[in-house]
């Protein structure tokens, strides 16, 4: 070890003599060299006066380690100004493997500290490497060596490492005693489904440490899956359950331990209760590791991760080992009900105070709550609390018997409305699609898909590896070196190992890359769209999440119908409006699924006419250009982005979504009240015409302002109507900020009132044309002069179908 002078010496120092020469043995705390240092001291002279004098003091430097002096880096007479390396000492033992505070090689105590201790010996081996023992730590060098060996071995056998999560990934566990009763009861409707549920008992677990039974349902096809995958991957278990739990599960899924061996890591050894860390298992290199887990957030959306859809067999139980994890963001909750009425945000249950969460199907989690729970991992007090919370979850489950409750509800429902439920569609998620007669169903196909995906990654990895190895310089070098390298190195070249972190995203983005998705009604208001679980997941596939619809948008993923964005998207013919299920299914199956079965049935009222190419350009550019302008219409948004941004960039002024139906009805009435007469619409046309001539390229903005002035009468009217209502104020604002795009939509809806006719539309077109010639530039035109008769006709037809929902547009037109 190279000894370095500490900062604490009184520099500059002068070396006076070296006490040891190369080859000498030296013990800890034995003097290595003498040196002098200068400092000022207080002295009392013969007259009794104190004065500061600079004095030279000799002292000696002591070794901090045992060993043999190899080489001096300094010589006698040197003056040293700061910390430098002074001597190389060969240690008999570098303490690279330590066990329980001892060096595992020489048996020396690593926790000793003295006045001369620069760095604790225990710091030399900081890495925990073994799955099931936290007392064993190794140095980085040793970790590297072990890992390199492992990689060689894997490459030679053409395998990768696979880290497998247990709960909800390959099994589903519950402690609800109802399962045990149903299992015994042949008459129970769930008897069939429960037949292959395994059970075990953990003695010092559960309420009051009395022990409780765990019921384990294996994911369908698990046995084959593990057998097949074990040929391509070396399997590791990484679970948030306790050690005993993990061992018991391993006994069930792998009784011979041929698959997992003792590569099992539980939360007892994980080091964190809230996050999983790949470096705990693979401290230096994660190139050859693939993870499968049902939660991406605990892994920080690691690039090695394949997120699988959670296995939810025992309905409503969720993950029994996740009560201290940040709450799951529920991304799968899109059932028919949600389409009909906006999901109410459920009151968030607090973890720390022990109100155990009822895991799945519950409310959405704010990013903040997540951070808070995530951050609690290091605080021992919080950790204890979280463990208590976990215990209480189990207690709740044992006592409350959620399954029994659900079955009761189900039976009650059964008696009540049997027929109406038959119509619920069957493409919904399995857990949502509760059968009428028994609660538990078992038609999960995830593992079969997963196997394909893992095979795909494996094949791609070794293709890449073989390619780089046989081609190019690396291959030649390897070939040249072939004679010299030892046998084990012959078929492997560690430098050429590709990285799963590169390969997986490549495969994934080939499938779904290039898609630009806009969410609508998927995430609760106030969520950061870019950081929500579903977004992170989608982004790992190279999908771009955008907050607004523009020309690049390919899909609108709508959590429910009739949102502002759905309406807007109808005007972009190439934007496919799909349900959330499409995205989820695509992500889960790693396929670009056909959108057809997932298309959202757009309410006819919401269907706006398609934007013409020109106005689309306008829209695209206006996103950029208008962002710094205050003029713009109100954009009421039910999603995450702040309203201000929309207000600034404003383009859309559709009626606000997210208000309840009464309010909406009120607004519609209000609108209908001041839906203008012919005069108004004419004046509007006039205004527009004026505008065309003056506006030029910035015509759009100018027109907005003009329209605003024209609006005034209507505004007054409205002010009288509903001054206080925030909604009406918003709408008012939106009138003032009318934009060109709105005109597009509004040109036809006027027909709804049977006021203007085709004549008027034609008239408008004429104006447009005139304006185009006048202004010399028409790229700002909302109404495209190229619109032909067919377009017009279609627009008119569409407009006939419109109803009050578009009234706002009509108003704009009529002002």
């Amino acid at each position, binding site marked *: 070890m190279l000894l370095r002078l500490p900062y604490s010496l009184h520099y500059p120092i002068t070396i006076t003599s070296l006490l040891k020469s190369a080859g000498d043995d030296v013990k800890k705390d034995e003097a290595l060299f003498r040196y002098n240092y200068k400092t000022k001291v207080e002295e009392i002279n013969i007259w009794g006066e104190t004065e500061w004098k600079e004095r030279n003091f000799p002292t000696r430097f002591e070794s901090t380690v045992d060993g043999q002096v190899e080489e001096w880096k300094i010589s006698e007479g040197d003056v040293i100004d700061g910390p430098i390396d002074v001597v190389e000492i060969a240690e008999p033992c570098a303490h690279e*493997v330590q*066990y329980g505070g001892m060096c595992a090689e020489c048996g020396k105590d690593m926790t000793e500290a003295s006045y001369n201790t620069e760095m604790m010996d225990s710091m030399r081996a900081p890495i925990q490497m073994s799955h099931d023992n936290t007392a064993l730590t190794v140095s980085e060098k040793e970790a590297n060596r072990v890992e390199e060996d492992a990689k060689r071995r894997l490459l030679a056998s053409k395998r990768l490492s696979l880290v497998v999560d247990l709960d909800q990934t390959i099994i589903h566990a519950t402690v609800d005693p109802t399962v045990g009763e149903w299992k015994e009861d042949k008459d129970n409707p769930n008897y069939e489904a429960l037949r292959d549920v395994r059970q075990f008992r953990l003695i010092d677990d559960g309420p009051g440490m009395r022990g409780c039974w765990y019921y384990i349902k294996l994911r369908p096809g698990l046995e084959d899956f593990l057998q097949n995958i074990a040929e391509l991957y070396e399997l590791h278990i990484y679970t948030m359950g306790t050690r005993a739990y993990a061992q018991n599960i391993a006994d069930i899924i792998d009784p*011979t331990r041929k698959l997992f061996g003792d590569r099992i890591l539980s939360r007892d050894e994980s080091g964190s209760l809230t996050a999983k860390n790949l470096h705990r298992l693979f401290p230096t290199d994660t190139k050859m590791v693939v993870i499968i887990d049902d939660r991406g957030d605990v892994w920080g959306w690691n690039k090695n991760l394949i997120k699988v859809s959670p296995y939810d067999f025992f309905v409503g139980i969720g993950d029994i080992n996740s009560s201290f994890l940040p709450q799951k963001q529920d991304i799968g909750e899109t059932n028919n009900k949600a389409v009909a009425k906006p999901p109410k945000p459920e009151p968030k249950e607090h973890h720390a105070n022990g109100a155990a969460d009822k895991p799945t199907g519950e409310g959405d989690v704010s990013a903040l709550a997540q951070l808070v729970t995530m951050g609690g991992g290091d605080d021992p007090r919080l950790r204890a609390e979280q463990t208590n919370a976990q215990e209480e979850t189990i207690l709740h489950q044992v006592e409350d018997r959620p399954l029994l409750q659900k079955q009761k509800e189900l039976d009650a429902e059964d008696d009540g409305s049997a027929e109406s439920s038959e119509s619920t569609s069957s493409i919904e998620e399995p857990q949502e699609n509760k059968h009428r007669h028994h609660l538990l169903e078992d038609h999960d196909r995830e593992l079969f898909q997963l196997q394909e995906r893992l095979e795909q990654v494996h094949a791609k990895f070794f293709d890449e590896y073989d390619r780089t190895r046989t081609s190019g310089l690396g291959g030649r070098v390897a070939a040249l070196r072939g004679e010299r390298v030892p046998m084990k190195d012959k078929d492997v070249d560690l430098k050429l190992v590709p990285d799963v972190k590169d390969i997986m995203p490549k495969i994934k983005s080939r499938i779904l890359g290039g898609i630009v998705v806009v969410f609508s009604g998927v995430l609760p208001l106030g969520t950061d769209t870019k950081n929500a679980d579903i977004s992170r997941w989608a982004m790992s596939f190279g999908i771009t999440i955008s907050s607004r619809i523009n020309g690049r948008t390919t899909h609108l993923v709508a959590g429910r119908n009739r949102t502002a964005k759905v309406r807007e998207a109808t005007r972009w013919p190439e934007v496919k409006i799909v349900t959330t299920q499409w995205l989820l299914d695509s992500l889960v199956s790693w396929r670009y699924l056909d959108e057809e079965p997932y298309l959202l049935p757009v309410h006819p009222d919401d269907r706006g006419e398609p934007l013409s190419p020109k106005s689309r350009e306008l829209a695209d550019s206006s996103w950029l250009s208008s962002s710094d302008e205050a003029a713009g219409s109100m954009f009421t948004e039910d999603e995450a982005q702040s309203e201000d941004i929309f207000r600034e960039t404003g383009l859309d002024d559709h009626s606000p979504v997210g208000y309840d139906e009464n309010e909406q009805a009120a607004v519609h009435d209000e609108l209908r009240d001041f839906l203008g007469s012919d005069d108004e619409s004419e004046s509007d046309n006039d205004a527009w015409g004026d505008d065309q001539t003056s506006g030029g390229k910035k015509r759009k903005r100018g027109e907005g302002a003009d329209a605003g002035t024209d609006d005034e009468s209507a505004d007054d009217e409205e002010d009288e109507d509903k001054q206080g209502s925030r909604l009406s104020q918003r709408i008012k604002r939106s009138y003032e900020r009318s934009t060109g795009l709105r005109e597009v939509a509004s040109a036809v809806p006027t027909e709804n009132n049977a006021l203007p006719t085709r004549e008027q539309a034609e008239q408008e077109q004429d104006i447009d044309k005139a304006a185009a010639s006048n202004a010399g530039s028409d790229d700002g035109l909302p109404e495209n002069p190229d619109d032909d008769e067919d377009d017009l006709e279609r627009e008119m037809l569409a407009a006939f179908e419109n109803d009050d929902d578009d009234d706002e547009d009509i108003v704009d037109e009529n002002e």
Partner: protein
Amino acid sequence: MFFLKEEAKVITLHPSYFGPNMREYLITRLNEEEEGRCTGDHFVICVMDMVDIGEGRVMPSSGHAEYTIKYRAIIWKPFRGETVDAIVTSVKPTGIFTLAGPLSVFIARKNIPSDIKWEPNTVPPQYTDHADQVIEKGTSLRLKILGVKPDVAAINAIGTIKEDYLGPL
């Protein structure tokens, strides 16, 4: 090394146990609490006999009785240099974990003879010299303790099998 050690323990007894079987109860309590305990310095293997149970003292205010029991017990205190037999609990690329009775002993790779190599491809993985010596989970080993480190309620030890007459039995 094993010792016969005389020790004393204070047991408090709830008044509901006052009665004819008090003595038996005290003995059961002592056995339950002491046997198998690790003090951080040694393991209590077995309580041999009571030297003196002594007179109980009723504590004021609570009514509990306090007994100071003197007893003799066989204890095991592992020493550096001691040779013990142990059973392998798991094998890792970095070394072997073994259990010598209550004591967990780790044998680092450096303390395994160099001809006995890590062989991860077998099921279960093992250390072997590709001859008659195979070390896998469950194998009995004779090892020498290289170092002992007391902890709060446990003792960690490291061992070696890199000497004559050590290794799989």
